[in-house]
């Protein structure tokens, strides 16, 4: 099975601290990581490869530093990586990002399955999977948790996916796009030996727009229909903001009295 895996290199929002004075998150010095939900996707793709053989190519559109993200998933067992990186790609919204990714996948050629994470921790749009599917005119299923069946002859694969109150089994014709449900897998650790190989054999290619040859009107800012027009502040919800600081016993009594006054004791 020829698999493409989409990963994003994101600031580690876990390590981002909140600045109560300015109300913003402190991003300086925050290390970047592979989007954690993409590790679920990586694990899922690796399991397919373990079972059916084939090749996994990780792709990312990002500045050069994201090469570390590709090295990370290669360390987990992914075969090689392609980083689409060019100043001309900068400022892309999800339409323009998905365009470049779709063109990368086209250029790779012969891909059976494209695997994405459910969403990124920094933007959480969950757009990219569906948008890449749309550019490539492929069927797709989101929130995949498990493989149910793969029929190599018929080129069909069946997955179990979960919505809030139901599990669904989808059979889908290949080539197809899926997104893997976040928290659904236990991503395997990086193996040092793989990582060293990754550095020695250098299986990561960087494709700039020289290699890609995309129309500048379709990429980056120009290829993005959405623009950020301004910034405002979230209106604060009026709250009483009464705070008790002191003996915990007293504090709890104080709180119970307040809740009684408000009539929000459940019994």
């Amino acid at each position, binding site marked *: 099975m020829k698999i493409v895996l989409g990963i994003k290199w994101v600031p580690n*929002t876990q390590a*981002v601290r*909140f600045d*109560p004075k300015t109300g*913003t*998150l402190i991003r300086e010095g925050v290390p970047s990581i592979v989007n*954690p939900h993409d590790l679920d996707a990586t694990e899922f793709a690796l399991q397919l490869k373990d079972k059916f053989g084939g090749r996994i190519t990780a792709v990312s559109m990002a500045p050069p530093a994201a090469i570390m993200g590709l090295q990370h998933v290669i360390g987990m067992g992914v075969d090689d990586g392609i980083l689409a990186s060019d100043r001309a790609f900068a400022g892309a919204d999800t*339409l323009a990002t998905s365009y470049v990714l779709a063109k990368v996948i086209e250029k790779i050629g012969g891909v059976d399955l494209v695997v994405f994470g459910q*969403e990124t921790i920094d*933007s*959480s749009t*969950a*757009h990219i999977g*569906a*948008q890449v*599917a*749309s550019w490539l005119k*492929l*069927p*797709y*299923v*989101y*929130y995949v948790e498990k493989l149910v069946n793969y029929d190599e002859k018929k080129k069909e694969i069946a997955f179990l996916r979960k*919505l*809030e*109150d*139901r599990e*669904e*089994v*989808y*059979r*889908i*014709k290949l080539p197809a796009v899926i997104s893997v449900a976040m*928290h659904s897998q236990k991503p395997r650790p990086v193996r040092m030996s793989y990582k060293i190989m990754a550095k020695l054999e250098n299986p990561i290619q960087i494709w700039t727009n020289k290699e890609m040859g995309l129309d500048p*009107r*379709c990429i980056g800012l*120009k*290829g993005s*229909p*959405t*623009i*950020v*027009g301004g*910034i405002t502040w*979230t209106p*604060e919800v009026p*709250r009483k903001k*009464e*705070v*008790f*600081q002191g003996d915990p016993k007293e*504090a*709890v009594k104080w*709180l*119970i009295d307040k*809740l009684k006054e408000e009539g*929000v*004791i*459940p*019994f």
Partner: protein
Amino acid sequence: MSFDPSARKKKKVDCGKLCPEWECRQPGEFEGIWVIGEIEDGQIHEASLQMLTPARNIAEKLQTWIEGVLIGGDKEALEKAAKEVIYHGADKVRIIYHPDLKVYSADQYALVLSEEAKRVKPEVIFVAATLRGREFGPYIANTLRAGITADCTNFDVDMKTGDVVMIRPPFGAIMLAHIKTPTRRPQMGTARPNVFPIPERDESRTGEITWIELESIPQRRAFLEEVTIIPQTELPIEKADYLVSGGRGVATKELWSLLEELAKEMGAVVAGSRKAVDMGFIPHEKQVGQTGKTVKPKLYIAVGISGAAQHTFGIREAGIVVAINKDPEAPIFKASDYGIVGDAKEVLPLLIEEIKKLK
């Protein structure tokens, strides 16, 4: 300032500047607001009805109409849903019907809806960001080469240009980004369930229902083979009146079980912050906040939660908010009614004891 509808026609797009993969269309050709109605188990989804709230607001500002758009293969369910959509505020409803559309399939539904949108040319499309909406919505946007903004928390109109302003918190801030798509129509936006209320139901409302009976539809390539409904053992957090919510500050086995005990004693449902989800203490459907759920309990008790804007966004509709946190500087105290500065390890057992006494 009010919007001058003739401004629509004044907008001109230079086709030579557009990506050749985008069909060049003048914004002036587009009018009306679509609200896509999701039908689940024969019923219109509440989250779709909620989208009629911002749609009404935008329709008034743009002096235009709201059209509910339904797709499916079950005439009875479609007819029933269409009435609900009108009772809740749509001016009219468009029903796209084909017997083979009985079962949802993301790309097929999205392609059918995109084709209809190309023909009808609405200037705005709203989709509820349910799990299915998050799946088919971006495919429609992409097929139309339209801009789409996910998880908006509000919508507005730029009165000069008539552009819809999609308002959403960007990465890591209390700030709100105002996102527009000045040169492309339709303009698409989604909002998570419960961010907006369902408009009042009024059975006296009427509206035209247009049936589009398709002769052929794109081939289905993803087939739903099996559905297993998971029985729900407790109320979903968005329906609960009492929530006890935990964050990283209680993300240890010992403290979390105290949190659960408190919830049990109170008859409350347990929820949590994104960190509680990331650390495996609760599933994502119990996450409160911008990328989780908006909840409206009578009482929300946040324990060991710092109060990041992405979290408190989810509790702005809550009745009384209580915070227990050992850091007196934690922003959660500014977003709550009653706060206790203290260690959950000490405060929770005492609170459980007091609650027991009350019963």
